[in-house]
């Protein structure tokens, strides 16, 4: 048996977290060193797996499978494909940079790193999951430490509220998706006669027709049934939205800016950078890939919700004075693009979605890191109160501007590489299966101008993004330095600079050399499209 790379990556943070908890409370530096070592180790392994993946062969690689609960066909089952690999790498990078910029946390750092690392294990576990139960298991592990991380180390004013709101939103989403997943499991078991939570088995059974039956909602007051629809069409929205809550889809996005703002810097980075991808990724893996019929049917109208995400999110970001809220809503807008890309059901869109998940993860992590550094020194995040920061911390200013350009989609940076194919994909998308939608929606979705129009409207967000990013850059980093900051605001530490350099470097590398990732993602997109019956 080959070396279990994925398991080692998954459990590195958890083991490091336990080690840290076992250290005596006053050994704070040692705790940080263990955390850093774990971050470096996970990053190196992720890079190895990333470049060791055989693109010519495609499919799932680095597979490991062990029995877990045999009665229910639950296995510990991991593997990566072109869609999950960039996200594994992203998680490792955010973990590493998160440790670097959290070096200064002084209130119970042991617990902080332990909880953060449990979360990281959960995230890795979801990205490499090939078993539905395995996915849920790690998904929940990724969710609940957020509560403690935000509630304990967060921003005093809103942390209790934001932490509870976030946890309940995400938990509600996941349990609703869980019931949908259980229904899928039972349907497959009745069809094949064998209990299995393996997503590969479920997908095969789906192709063989396990879900080709109707669901009838009886009318409790007698008369005709309220709803008769095919299983996939019925279950898809539950599963898709259950996960997409974590991806920040409208109208369930509301937890996310509050959560971002209240969280301490490293947690915001994790939260916006990685956790929101978790939602989008699971919605794709479980929702779209296991229920393609449902996806073909529902996505043409879901695109309207994502349009709201993209445009409305950017306008709300425009009106914010608090930098963290601005970035929080910008995340809603950019993650809306990912969800919108899912609705295209074509190659451009899906490759763009994969790139955007990575690109946005790096970019938001960078933004939150910068804001955290400014806040730690100036003790405010309100843009009108700031100014002239470029003189005090030039390094942060450069990094923020690079991030800002990425966010605007400037060529040469990763944002352009990701967003261009998404817009192309949306432009070319067509509604595939509208029978059963309400009449007006069906005829609307069938119009040849439906998707191009959506692409045009969502392009507005690029302009708005440019406006709020440039405004933020101008207000925060240039202009006059307020007098009270003259003395006590200093430059950032070497560790901070290292973290920023890593993040900026990734955006530039992907921007100038997209071939490092795009073909890889394409290997995974092709099978997805085949499931969807496109191509």
């Amino acid at each position, binding site marked *: 048996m080959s070396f279990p790379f994925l398991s080692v990556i998954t459990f590195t943070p958890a083991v490091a977290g336990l080690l840290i*908890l076992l250290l005596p*409370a006053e050994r704070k530096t040692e705790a940080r060193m263990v955390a850093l070592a774990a971050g470096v180790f996970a990053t190196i392994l992720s890079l190895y797996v990333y470049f060791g993946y055989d693109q010519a062969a495609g499919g799932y690689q680095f597979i490991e499978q062990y*029995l*877990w*609960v*045999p*009665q*229910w066909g*639950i296995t510990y089952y991991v593997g990566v494909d072109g869609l999950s690999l960039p996200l594994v790498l992203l998680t490792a990078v955010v973990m590493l940079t998160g440790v670097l910029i959290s070096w200064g946390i002084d209130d*119970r750092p*042991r*617990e902080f790193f332990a909880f953060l690392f449990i979360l990281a294990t959960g995230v890795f576990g979801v990205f490499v999951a090939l078993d539905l*139960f395995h996915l849920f*298991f*790690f998904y*929940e*592990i990724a969710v*609940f430490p957020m*509560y*403690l991380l935000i*509630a*304990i180390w967060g921003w005093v004013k809103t942390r*209790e509220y934001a932490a*509870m709101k976030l*946890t*309940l939103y995400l*938990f*509600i989403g996941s*349990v*609703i998706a*869980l*019931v949908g997943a*259980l*229904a899928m*499991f*039972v349907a497959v078991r009745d069809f094949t006669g064998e209990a299995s939570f393996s997503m590969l088995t479920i997908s095969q059974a789906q192709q063989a027709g396990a879900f080709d039956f109707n669901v009838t909602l009886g009318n409790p007051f007698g008369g005709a049934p309220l709803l008769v629809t095919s299983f996939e069409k019925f279950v898809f929205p539950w599963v898709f939205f259950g996960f997409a809550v974590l991806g920040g889809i409208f109208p369930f996005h509301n937890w996310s800016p509050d959560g971002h703002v209240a969280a301490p810097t490293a947690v915001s980075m994790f939260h916006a950078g990685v956790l929101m991808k978790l939602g989008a990724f699971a919605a794709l893996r479980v929702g779209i890939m296991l229920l393609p019929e449902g996806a073909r049917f529902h996505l043409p109208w879901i695109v309207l919700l994502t349009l709201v995400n993209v445009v409305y999110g950017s306008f709300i970001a425009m009106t914010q004075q608090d930098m963290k809220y601005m970035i929080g809503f910008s995340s809603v807008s950019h993650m809306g693009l990912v969800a919108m890309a899912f609705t295209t059901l074509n190659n451009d869109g899906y490759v763009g979605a994969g790139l955007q998940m990575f690109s946005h993860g790096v970019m938001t992590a960078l933004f939150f890191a910068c804001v955290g550094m400014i806040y730690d020194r100036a003790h405010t995040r309100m843009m009108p109160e700031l100014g002239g920061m470029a003189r005090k911390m030039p390094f942060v200013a450069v990094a923020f501007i690079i991030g800002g350009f990425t966010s605007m989609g400037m060529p040469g940076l990763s944002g352009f590489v990701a967003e261009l194919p998404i817009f192309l994909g949306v432009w070319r998308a067509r509604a595939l299966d509208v029978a059963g939608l309400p009449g007006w929606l069906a005829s609307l979705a069938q119009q040849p101008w439906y998707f191009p129009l959506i692409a045009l409207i969502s392009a507005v967000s690029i302009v708005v993004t440019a406006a709020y990013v440039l405004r933020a850059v101008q207000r925060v980093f240039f202009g006059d330095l307020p007098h009270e900051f003259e003395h006590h605001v200093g430059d950032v530490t070497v560790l901070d600079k290292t973290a920023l350099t890593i993040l900026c470097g990734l955006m530039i590398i992907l921007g100038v050399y997209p071939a490092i990732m795009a073909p890889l993602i394409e290997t995974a997109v092709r099978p997805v499209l085949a499931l969807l019956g496109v191509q």
Partner: protein
Amino acid sequence: MSFNPFNPETLLAILPELVLVVTAALVMGLDVVWPESRRRGLGLLTAGGLALAAVLALIFSQPSPDNALIFGGMMRDDGLAFIFRLLFMFSGMIVALLSVDSQGVARKGEYYAILLGAVIGMNFMAAAADLIMLYLALETTSIALYLLAGFLRDDDKSAESGLKYFLFGAFTSAMMLYGFSLLFGFTGKTNLYELSGALLSGGVPTLPVLVALLLVLVGFGFKVSAVPFHFWSPDVYEGAPTPVTAFISVASKAAGFAVLVRVMVAVFPDVEGYWAPLVAVISVFTMTLGNTLALAQRNIKRLLAYSSIAQAGYALIGLAALSESGIAAIIFYLLMYTVTNLATFGVIILAVRAIGSDEIADYAGLSRRSPGLALVFLVGFLSLGGMPPLGGFFGKFFVFTAAVESGLVWLAVIGVLNAIVGLYYYLTVLKVVYLYRSERDNETIAVPRAYALALGLCSFGILLLGTAAGPWFSWATAAARGLF
């Protein structure tokens, strides 16, 4: 139905109980002999006796492969009885460990003897295969528990707790006994495994059978604190000495489930079309009411009382699912619930000693005063809330899967919605523990070794059930299979 003739080897099947009787006698004897200063050892001796009994049970009292009826049909030597007996002895052991420094009960021989008596009663409850045996075992347990709940004679709340428990218990027990008498009257049989056939062949009409069923359900519903027979639990939990509360909340409830499952499946299979939906409805009300009322609690013991009502509701889903996997899910759920609740109560016992209050608000700063205790508390509460990688996640998952498998999707949906409400109040308590400060942040809380051992065992159990759930669930499934 054939009864094995008595043979001395069957005594091995009750070897653990014999050990417990000897331990109880020993404890009473040493209580007289030992001076006050040495009596802390009584608790350790009790725990040791229970551990020994559990080990002997594992070696000598493995269930017979053919689920034989032994002692003239009084007991059934099957997997269900085996698992539950181990569970009771484990929880008895943990409770004894948690009692050794607990105010008012720690140095009293009779306390430990009664505790052992309760465990013996529960062991026989789990194994009983005859109405007479069942009732005797149940009363042995109940009377011991009434005494334990009211053990702090000088404390009004404890006395009230004992009396209230007794009054409710005696009333429901009488109802149940009436149900038993009806069953006996219809059939002339007392053996559980003959009743069903006798009911069918005797042509007893459905209605009287249902009346008997309802009466029996009242008694068992009281034991598991299902709505509407739950009224006793908050007051009893609050007033009883905390180790006793822990014991009532896990062992007594588990014993109730053991007899509930056995009797329902063995005696009433022909009317399952009636009681399965009824159990589903009871489960919905139990979950919902428990969780809703828990939201408003300010006292940690009352909060856990309502939480334990809600937990019983989740477990009942498994019975409503009416399948082998459903019963297996109940057994797993109770295993998980037992270790989890014992861990939480263990922390509370220690915290109360240091804080001197049961109010949730007074738990502020616990994470600074004792990070280890706070961590156990966190593990326990998140497990109750159903978070991985802790036992509670698998517990809920199995129960809900069993429900969906039996077509009860609506019940699973109500269950998961309840899980969200539950998570809310568990998190609220954790927030107080981790977030708020108190004036005494710098005073650490001492954790005696016996408590550290008990808490360590329980935390390990929670993590074990939450990660390597497979073997445990296989075990539970094998036991469930023996019932059908």
